[in-house]
């Protein structure tokens, strides 16, 4: 990818030396050729990871427009500037589907306009906000409240005999996060689903800019409460890359231990909940018992049921003793026995088979086109796991196993999780058997001014991405957060086509995406 850009742009592509780590290069290209650069990326089979804007007025510049592409283990960031008096840039949406929502979001929150974008409706920013409010701009005072205006969201409509509409949310029937789904249906068949999100937008990215660097890890740990370890870890790895801070080996292994425990707990809950949505409550209750036991062990050993605030810049906040190690090992042993019994029951249950197979299919072609990540991608034939493709210690030594299935249905997304639970148990045992001795923190000094850092971490939902930029005074100038859900949400709209309305909860649960991680 890098070579493609250099051969296409020659001297017009300037490498930005303030970007860390060196393995993820950043090139500045001319604004009018921003879309042109997408062509060779598409031909190379790359995916669009994220697109975001920065306000670089404090550096005496305009708005920065960034896009990150990835192919296998290679990541590449391209950047261009757009002046304050003409904040426009060429849209990438026609080349890469994920740019569709990223660019709506950039327009809504930063006020930079993607030229040629097919949809000018706001995203995250709801219809009752004032049009000219751009919270991510430096000139915007975040403590000020926004006055509401009258506005109406223009839904995609379907017309014809027998077509009716079902609005759902934002307050849903279950104990879940808020969002709005608008279905057009004929009889039981869904002909279109449109999502409207942004209900839990808390101004997280803006909030980062007012926090000291170490507090940032706490906020990252609350981007999505179910993924607290992975988000905090990704933030920490990003800021550590900017300062070239190397946490001690023991800390790295303990981070992996927590990351895998988080994966198991969430996957257990999800498998149970999917079966429950197919009216097999037995599995939910059985699996929530297992999950609860794991959370209690977390509380006992790490002082928090979800291990919040245990990953900090420079290392980890808590160590485990040899006795704790034994406890986890015997817990893993117990878990394997209990879990495998339930897997057999799942496997033998023909009514589950009937509901879960061929429901909510995301074909591998669609998965590639939408650039989805995580178990959603792996259930639709995509080889993708940053623990394997971009390993950090100890994953380069304990190599996770990747399960890739091709059917892309609810069953596939459930089965990828099943295999990942098994593998995470194996990884935890390996981690504990070779856990190095030593200290658990390294001194972390905040990054110097005008640098940027990038990191990816495979959370339980998939690839999490952070890009952080330090400002002229050494403060956080911008923290871009990309939860797996930011790209995966749109896959649900695609997967539901051809399904019946009563299967929506089942399909939705099989993706189990984060609203908070998406809305930020």
């Amino acid at each position, binding site marked *: 990818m890098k070579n493609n850009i250099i051969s296409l742009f020659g001297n017009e592509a300037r490498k930005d030396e303030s970007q860390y780590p060196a393995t993820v290069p950043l090139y500045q290209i001319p604004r009018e050729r921003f879309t042109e650069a997408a062509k060779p990326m598409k031909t190379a089979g790359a995916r669009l990871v994220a697109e975001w804007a920065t306000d670089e007025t404090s550096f005496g510049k305009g708005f920065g427009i960034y896009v990150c592409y990835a192919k296998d283990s290679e990541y590449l960031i391209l950047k261009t500037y757009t002046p304050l008096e003409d904040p426009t840039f060429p849209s990438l949406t026609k080349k890469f589907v994920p740019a569709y929502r990223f660019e709506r979001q950039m327009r809504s929150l930063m006020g930079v306009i993607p030229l040629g974008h097919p949809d000018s409706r706001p995203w995250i920013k709801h219809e009752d906000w004032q049009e000219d409010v751009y919270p991510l701009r430096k000139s915007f005072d975040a403590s000020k409240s*926004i006055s509401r205006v009258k506005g109406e969201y223009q839904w995609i409509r379907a017309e014809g005999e027998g077509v009716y509409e079902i609005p759902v949310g934002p307050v849903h029937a279950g104990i879940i996060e808020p969002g709005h789904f608008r279905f057009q249906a004929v009889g039981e068949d869904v002909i279109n689903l449109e999502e409207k999100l942004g209900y839990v937008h808390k101004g997280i990215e803006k909030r980062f800019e007012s926090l000291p660097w170490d507090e940032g890890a706490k906020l990252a740990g*609350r981007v999505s*409460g179910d993924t607290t370890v992975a988000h905090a870890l990704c933030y920490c790895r990003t800021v550590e890359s900017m300062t070239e801070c190397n946490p001690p080996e023991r800390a790295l292994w303990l981070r992996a231990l927590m990351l895998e425990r988080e994966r198991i707990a969430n996957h257990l809950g999800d498998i149970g909940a999917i079966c429950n949505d197919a009216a097999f409550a037995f599995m939910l209750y059985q699996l929530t018992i297992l999950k*609860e036991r794991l959370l209690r062990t977390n509380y006992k050993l790490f002082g928090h049921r979800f291990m919040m605030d245990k990953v900090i810049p420079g290392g980890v906040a808590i160590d485990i003793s040899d006795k704790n190690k034994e406890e986890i090992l015997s817990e893993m042993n117990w878990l394997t026995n209990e879990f495998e019994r339930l897997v*057999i029951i799942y496997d033998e249950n023909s009514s589950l088979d009937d509901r879960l197979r061929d429901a909510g299919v995301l074909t591998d072609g669609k998965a590639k086109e939408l650039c989805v990540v995580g178990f959603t991608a792996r259930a639709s034939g995509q080889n993708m796991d940053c623990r394997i493709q971009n390993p950090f210690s100890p994953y380069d030594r304990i190599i996770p196993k990747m399960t890739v299935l091709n059917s892309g249905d609810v069953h596939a997304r459930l089965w990828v999780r099943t295999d990942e639970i098994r593998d995470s148990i194996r990884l935890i045992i390996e981690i504990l058997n070779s856990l190095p001795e030593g200290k658990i923190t390294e001194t972390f000094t905040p990054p110097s001014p005008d640098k940027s850092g990038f990191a990816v971490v495979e959370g339980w939902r998939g690839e999490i991405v952070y890009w952080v930029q330090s400002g002229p005074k050494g403060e956080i100038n911008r923290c871009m957060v990309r939860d797996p859900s930011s790209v995966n949400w749109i896959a649900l709209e695609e997967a539901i086509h051809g399904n019946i309305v009563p299967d929506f909860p089942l399909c939705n649960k099989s993706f189990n995406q984060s609203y908070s991680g998406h809305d930020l």
Partner: protein
Amino acid sequence: MLRILHQIFRTGIVTESLPPAEEAEVEAIGVKLEEAIKRYFRRSLTIREVDAGSCNGCELEIHALNNPIYNCERFGIHFTASPRFADMLLVTGPVSINMETALRRTYNATPNPKFVIAVGDCGYNGGIFGESYASLGGIGKIIPVDVYIHGCPPKPADILNGILKSFEDSRPT
């Protein structure tokens, strides 16, 4: 089928096999809760959960109340899909700007008398999200709150305790 039955008998009733310390805590809260629920709600307390902007951490712990270990149904507590059947709202999060209207509407759709419990540090004062253009702060800024349950997130036993506290402190309003 035999495997399912076998697994059910093998599992038995896990609700009673909690670690002693927690069991004592949950049981003690539970007995009082049950009395209060009998007294005020004819043995059945119906709760509508509203995420008004949370990070989903509190939701996980509220979910846990329904697992067989906490098994909140044994005290007569049910979660309902509609606020119109609810005696109590369990609200989480800092109230986000985009959830303010939905929260007010849910509150108004809940029949009187009703209890409102704000769950988590964010529900108290916005927590780490503070007060900003997007986070309006604690739940109490938008609707009247009877009890606050602290914690990030509060543990399931703390949530049960908080529900009980709402009966001790006040009659439903």
